[in-house]
């Protein structure tokens, strides 16, 4: 998930708060500790909220007797901050692809011993040997998704290009994700560049396009944009695939999720073992368990997310999910999609550019 916005965090926090208000008997926030007799063996997992279904955790505990504690985060930065304190106590973390790069650079995760993992062959071709982690040396992809846009056909007949979001004909009915990296995917691709660009001039061009676009936007939104699309308050909005968007696409026939013809982008959240993890054997056991096709299928059936496991597709019971572009984009649609990578030192161009966009 390359979705790291304040508002998302806020939404999650507020949802938590509401939940806490409704059910005062709610347990420790974001932490599911299954009561298991265990064999004295433990596993501490730190994962994206909602990406490892409870059914998967329970199944693993039952089979191995290892007691699993899952803590959740809703931004890569939160997770990185915890790991960088040195004594996080986690045995397994779930960073997004560009965060894998950063964690390798900061030496916070350890190389994986492939002899202790079974089932890597089950991964889809594009997640074996990905550009951000050659040879899956440090991470095993688990969930993937896309960044594209969605539109409501009651006000826009059909749309295939990012240009829809830059068209002044829809002034005041357009939304962009309130996230720098996501905004620049659109900004760079609409000006004819790759989303992975780190070129100063290309980024400046994208910034100019985004500044111009701001005048016709209703706003930046990464919280309730699927609802705005559904109610027609938004004609088109930049969007992340996943549970929230998938539900709206499924329930409202007028809303369509599109990977733009310029390419769009893919993200993936994978499993990695932090340096200094105490229960490494259990961590490898869990990775191997998650790589089983029938287990990976639960990510879709119980979690409404796309699994990086190709072999899992045959085991997915919810066949509609496989056809829902807001969960599984077709291979043709993502043929040109860019894997968003860590911009490295080009970060400063994005930073200055995005501040300019926001302050304009």
């Amino acid at each position, binding site marked *: 998930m390359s979705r*790291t916005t*304040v508002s998302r965090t806020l939404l999650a926090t507020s949802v938590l708060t509401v939940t806490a*208000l409704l059910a005062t008997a709610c347990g420790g926030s974001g932490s599911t500790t299954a009561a298991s007799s265990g064999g004295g063996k433990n596993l501490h997992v730190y994962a994206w909220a909602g990406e490892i279904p409870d059914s998967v955790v329970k199944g693993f505990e039952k089979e191995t007797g290892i007691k699993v504690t899952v803590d959740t985060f809703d931004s890569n*930065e939160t997770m990185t901050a915890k790991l960088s304190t040195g004594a996080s106590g986690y045995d397994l973390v779930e960073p997004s692809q560009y965060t894998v790069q950063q964690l390798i650079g900061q030496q916070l995760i350890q190389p994986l011993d492939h002899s202790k993992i079974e089932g890597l062959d089950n991964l889809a071709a594009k997640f074996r040997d990905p550009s951000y982690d050659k040879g899956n040396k440090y991470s095993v992809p688990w969930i993937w998704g896309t960044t594209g846009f969605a539109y409501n056909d009651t006000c826009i007949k059909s749309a295939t290009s990012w240009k829809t979001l830059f068209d002044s004909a829809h002034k005041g009915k357009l939304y962009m994700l309130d996230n*720098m990296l996501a905004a620049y995917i659109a900004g760079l691709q609409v000006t004819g560049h790759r989303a992975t660009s780190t070129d100063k001039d290309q980024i400046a061009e994208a910034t100019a396009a985004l500044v111009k676009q701001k005048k016709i936007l*209703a706003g*930046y939104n990464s919280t309730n944009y699927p609802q705005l699309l559904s109610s027609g308050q938004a004609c088109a909005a930049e969007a992340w695939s996943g549970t929230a968007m998938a539900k709206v696409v499924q329930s409202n026939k007028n809303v369509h999720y599109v990977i733009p013809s310029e390419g769009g982008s893919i993200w993936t959240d994978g499993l990695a073992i932090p340096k200094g993890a105490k229960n490494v054997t259990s961590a490898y056991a869990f990775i191997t368990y998650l790589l089983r096709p029938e287990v990976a299928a639960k990510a879709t059936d119980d979690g409404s997310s796309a699994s990086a496991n190709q072999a899992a597709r045959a085991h997915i019971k919810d066949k509609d999910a496989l056809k829902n572009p807001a969960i599984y984009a077709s291979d043709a649609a993502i043929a040109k999609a860019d894997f968003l990578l860590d911009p490295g030192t080009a970060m400063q161009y994005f930073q200055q550019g995005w501040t300019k966009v*926001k*302050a304009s």
Partner: protein
Amino acid sequence: MTVTAAPPAPVPVPPAARTGRARHRAVTFALLAPAGLTVLALVLVPLVLVVRNSFALPDAYGGIEGGFTFANYTELFDPVYLKVFGYSLGMAALNTAVCLLLGYLVSYYLAGRSPQRQGLLLLLIIVPFWTDFLVRTFAWINLLSPGGPVNGLTDALGITHGPAQWIPSQGASFVGLVYAFLPTAIFPIYATLRGVDPSLGEAARDLGCGWWRVHTRVLLPLVRPGLLAAALLTFIPTLGVFVIPVLLGGGKNQLVGNLIVTLYTEFRNQPMGAAASVVLLVLMIASVAVLGTAARRLRRRTS
């Protein structure tokens, strides 16, 4: 000299009393220690860290590398960032002005009610505080959305016709700010206004003052300390707000708070985030100083 004759020389402070005073001091210290340590650990240490980090160089991953540079501050003087600071100060000033005006009117109304009624009304002002700030802000999204309750009301009154697109907008963002800070403005004004003898207003009225002059010539000067406190409690926190512009303003106009959050998270530039925080802190201290001086001058004049 015989040893036996001399009784033990009287000491100015008997040993028992001395240990007693020492014990007293130790007890005082022990009692103060928890609060002192809390302030030290939770306020001073983080503050020192932030100030230190604001002069540090960022590493390739946005963390703190160490070293010493003024670059984080000089970069903040880029017009792009200055605009954010300027906008924040403007919004905070406007919000303070509106909150003071509304706060004064509400306080005046409150102070004129019977004591039981005052208690009930104050309770009604406090009740929303029992709900989380975020949830209340989310409630405004529903209230202001097209076809929402507010829209329904204005439709019924014939002010609008059909769904109105009020949200997201700067207006909605401003409504959110006023909503968030109005109660904090009401309390200090109400507290001072309650201490003002109601007969003063009556006397002014008897002597021929109209409504406007009763307030401007008689009551307002008397509640000025309350107004200053309210201004302080509104202006400074407004500078740090970041939720409201995102949720109600559509993220189109940033406040300094938004800038700091983005610097720390998305931009992965902790040193510059720290520098922006320090600048904000200085702005806050400056406004406290200005308002404090105003309050002191006021006291000198009245005494």
